[in-house]
């Protein structure tokens, strides 16, 4: 199928493609979104919008994507199975297409017990494989009830992957099913260790989809420790921890480390990188510049 979004056109063109990430605010202030958009727009071809990570309530993905469209940053709409059954997921997808959203990322979603809304009912009517296929079905001109759609969406469908978890074969089997269900691109959980990049490359070398490894700046030792304790399968080499511990300017160190990781992603032959600024939106341009990938 032809590329319909800037993001997919960039991937198909063979140029190193960088996606960013917008973190919607927890209140109703669109200026917070616009500020992040302004910081990213010149540096990334598109940006993901998270769907209430760990179930903590923030501005909805659709509204955030709409603000991005108004300000000319192409959104990658993240949908998770945690809060919506197949009715709401399809309804939102059709609304997303009507707004002009062209890229989606189908994820399972964290369990609500992980965050502040721990008493909420976990939905998980679909899973990430079935959500991927739901988007494909809508693209094909039908909804899940079999009704024909005269004006179907035409999304580019992405999926997630956690390269650090064991057993990796179980994750790869699931990724293969996502591709069978219609996934066109993959973005991964953040990676800090070149050995994980190597493992990712080797475990997925038989798959014919672009994979964008995730990179997120490490802003402090505390954040690194938090990531180690909370992000599944993550490993942070001792050398990086020492650089953070010895750093006289954490922002500079964070930019350097992220830039080196972006550069390593390119060296390992990946077609692009998914850069999650985690609050360092203002420094994304500098990270990319120092990485030398452009």
């Amino acid at each position: 199928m032809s590329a319909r979004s800037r993001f997919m056109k960039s991937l198909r063109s063979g140029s190193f493609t960088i996606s960013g990430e917008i973190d919607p605010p927890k209140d109703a202030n669109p200026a917070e979104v616009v500020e992040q958009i302004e910081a990213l727009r010149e540096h990334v071809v598109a940006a993901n919008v998270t769907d209430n990570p760990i179930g903590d309530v923030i501005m909805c993905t659709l509204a955030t994507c709409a603000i991005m469209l108004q300000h000319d940053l192409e959104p990658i709409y993240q949908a998770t199975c945690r809060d919506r059954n197949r009715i709401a997921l399809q309804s939102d997808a059709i609304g997303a297409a009507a707004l002009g959203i062209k890229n989606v990322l189908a994820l399972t979603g964290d369990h609500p017990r992980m965050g502040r809304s721990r008493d909420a009912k976990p939905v998980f009517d679909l899973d990430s494989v079935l959500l991927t296929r739901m988007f494909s079905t809508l693209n094909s001109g039908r909804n899940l009830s079999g009704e024909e759609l005269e004006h179907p969406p035409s999304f580019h469908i992405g999926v997630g992957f956690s390269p650090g978890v064991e057993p990796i074969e179980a994750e790869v089997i699931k990724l293969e099913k996502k591709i069978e269900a219609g996934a066109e691109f993959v973005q991964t959980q953040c990676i800090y260790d070149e050995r994980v990049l190597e493992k990712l490359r080797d475990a997925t070398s038989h798959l014919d989809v672009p994979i964008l490894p995730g990179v997120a700046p490490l802003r402090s030792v505390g954040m690194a420790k938090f990531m180690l304790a909370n992000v599944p399968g993550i490993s942070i080499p001792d050398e990086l921890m020492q650089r953070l511990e010895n750093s006289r300017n954490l922002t500079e160190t964070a930019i350097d480390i992220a830039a080196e990781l972006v550069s390593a992603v390119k060296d390992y032959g990946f077609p692009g990188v998914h850069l999650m600024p985690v609050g360092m939106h203002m420094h994304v341009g500098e990270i990319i510049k120092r990485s030398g990938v452009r």
Partner: protein
Amino acid sequence: MIHTRHKPLEEILQMLSGAKVALLGCGGCVAFYRTGGAAQVRELAEKLRGHAEVVALGVSNRQCYLCAEEELSGLSDAERIRKIARELEGFDRLEEAEAVLSLACGVGVQNLAGVLEMPVYPAQNTLFMGRRRVEGDIDIELCAGCGDCVLGYTAGICPVTRCSKSLMNGPCGGVFNGLCEVSRVAGEEIPCAWVEIYRRLKKLGRLQEMRRIREAKSHSSSGIPRRVKVQEGVE
């Protein structure tokens, strides 16, 4: 079997609101797991002493099946209780009872409530269908009664009950060291069902079962309340 846990005494007393009460245990799952059998009926009666007036104690064979309906027709509540329960104490005072406190599961309580005029209250919260793991003293949910069993494709390990997200197509990205992501906040180690399914399928040489995309569960037959037409024998 069905697993239960006792309600706090305050809640029980609130329900009873001063009524004279007959306590009825059950000889089924709750007796096996020692939460609602004869010994627990006596124990609860002891706990209620001084807070509520307990007039009689008894244990039914199975509160989920009392007896044939016609055997109860035309009888008073006291006579019905005599018919369906074995006496532990005080059945001569059954006529004074204004309520029954049942130590059975939710099925038993409803069954009893369906045949008595007087109110029937639950002494327990009904948790789930599962088994007891002696090691670690833990009761584990195993079956949700979803009405569409997938155990044949998942190496006998149920993803509906044992995956915290009831996923149908493999592990999510939250798995770590073979554990479910919820382990991080639950304060206990919850195995990832899909890692267990993967390992067992691999051992059985049936990993191809995991490679097939499994459909989303149909919830059209699991709406509340579920009812099925009785069908005995093998179809």
